[in-house]
């Protein structure tokens, strides 16, 4: 029962999330369906970051870039009349993977502080690019002309249907990443994180594996971007604002790195907390900021550290 506790937490979380739409309907609070759909979309982004951060040791402070590119890909196709969801989402994932390949190719050659600065800088570049793209709304953004269409199979305009689609994708992503990190491929990136000189000495060149992980991670985050633009139905460069990269990073650490399930928990706690605080005061960030500092200083292992024993294989 190596992953026993963690699997139970995940199962409980999924059941809880599945119960939200009927519960919200019962309580007459449809807002919660909206909030938790947003939570799950960010959870997908956070799980994708955990793949390279928690397992690969790559501190990307630029994951908002892929969120943004996924959203832009969907919107741009929609502007030109392509509303087919399969095409749109494939484009979102593909474009994000391409971008991740380009950014990763440069940044993975460096390490440590350079990696952080460079991923942050490239995302800022895309943010400015988004601002200067007047055709697609520039600084002010633009409405998504029409939500992605799936030939009547699923209607994203229907809040509940969309909700369960996101939940299904979240489960798939978590299981996929889980599978990935336990594979031969996953063992290499974890080994390279744990002890790079040793990894090189036994014959692995970490670079191509890290780059591949970075690209996969970007692709998953791009999918989250495609979901997010359908969720908000409004495209803005703010999707790529650097503080959003910080938020996603914080979700992973808050929930517990290298646990796949932790980031889901982190997204849930952070966004629900944000929502509660912002209902209470306009100046909620004055509380969230110090909260973040305290988590880093005193709760290093995140919520996962409390809920399941530390996995020995980090």
């Amino acid at each position, binding site marked *: 029962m190596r992953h026993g506790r963690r699997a139970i937490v995940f199962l409980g979380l999924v059941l809880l999330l599945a119960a939200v739409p009927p519960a919200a309907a019962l309580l007459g609070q449809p807002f919660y369906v909206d909030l938790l759909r947003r939570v799950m979309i960010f959870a997908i982004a956070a799980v994708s970051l955990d793949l390279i951060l928690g397992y690969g040791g790559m501190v990307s402070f630029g994951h908002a870039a892929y969120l943004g590119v996924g959203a832009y890909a969907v919107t741009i196709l929609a502007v030109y009349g392509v509303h087919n969801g399969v095409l749109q989402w494939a484009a979102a994932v593909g474009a994000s993977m391409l971008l991740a390949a380009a950014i990763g190719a440069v940044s993975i050659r460096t390490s440590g502080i350079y990696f952080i600065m460079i991923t942050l800088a490239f995302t800022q570049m895309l943010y400015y690019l988004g601002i200067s793209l007047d055709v697609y709304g520039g600084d002010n953004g633009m409405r998504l002309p029409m939500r992605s269409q799936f030939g009547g199979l699923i209607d994203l305009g229907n809040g509940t249907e969309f909700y369960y689609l996101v939940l299904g994708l979240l489960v798939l992503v978590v299981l996929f990443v889980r*599978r*990935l990190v*336990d*594979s*031969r*491929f*996953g*063992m*290499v990136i974890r*080994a390279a994180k*744990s*002890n790079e*000189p*040793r*990894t*090189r*000495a*036994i*014959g*692995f*060149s970490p670079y191509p*594996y890290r780059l*591949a992980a970075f690209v996969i991670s970007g692709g998953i985050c791009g999918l989250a971007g495609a979901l997010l633009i359908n969720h908000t139905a409004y495209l803005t460069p703010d999707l790529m604002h650097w503080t959003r990269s910080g938020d996603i990073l914080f979700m992973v650490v808050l929930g517990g790195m290298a646990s796949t399930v932790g980031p889901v928990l982190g997204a849930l706690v952070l966004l629900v907390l944000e929502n509660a605080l912002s209902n209470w005061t306009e100046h909620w960030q004055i509380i969230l900021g110090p909260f973040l500092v305290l988590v880093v200083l005193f709760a290093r292992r995140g919520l996962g550290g409390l809920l399941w024993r530390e996995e*020995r*294989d*980090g």
Partner: protein
Amino acid sequence: MAEPLLEVRGLSKSFGALSATDQVELDVLEGETHAIIGPNGAGKTTLIGQLAGDLRPDAGRIRFAGEDITALDAPARSRRGFARSFQITSVYRDFTALDNVALAVQAHAGHSFRFWRAARGDEALRAPARAVLEEVGLGARAEVPAANLAHGEQRQLEIAMALATKPRLLLLDEPVAGMGAEESQRMVRFLATLKGRETMILVEHDMDAVFTLADRISVLVYGRIIATGTPAEIRANAEVRAAYLGED
């Protein structure tokens, strides 16, 4: 005489004004155990770095198994059969002993762009890894996280990882460093069982270990090899004795 397995010619590396390795010449023959000794600061670490591919030499060539490997990095040398242990124990502390060795097996089992099957359930990796662990005497400790192994066991684990890559040459960087007398003797006995089967470079301070194990010894002083020969020749060499005077 057959071509040596490892052939080092004119290897030089300096850091600023300090010449850390200076025109090093070294031949390691197939099957021999070749010790490199020298006082502290003689440039052993720099030499090892260049042999293993972590440091780029300023000048000189390294040939390994008939191929010029001077420009190859550490992973590429490992794939050609060059395995090493580190002076300061270097294992995957969070992984079990078996995981550690299985990774070494995996590194030499083709590419690892295999995304689906669980590596820990893969007998193609686990079985050979278990066999090597048995060989070094860690069979009963396979499922213990490396961090929880005793110091001596971690050093054995390093050698197990090196052996798991089926190396043609084993570079051992102070394998008995930091060990108690008993642990140290056990390690020397184990290395003696590898002697003849594996080609080994042994960089070591412990003279008992060196004179027990080595077929030939090279003495490194101020970045230069001042003598190479059998243990008896080295013992008798006046220059070597002078270099070590006041050192120990």
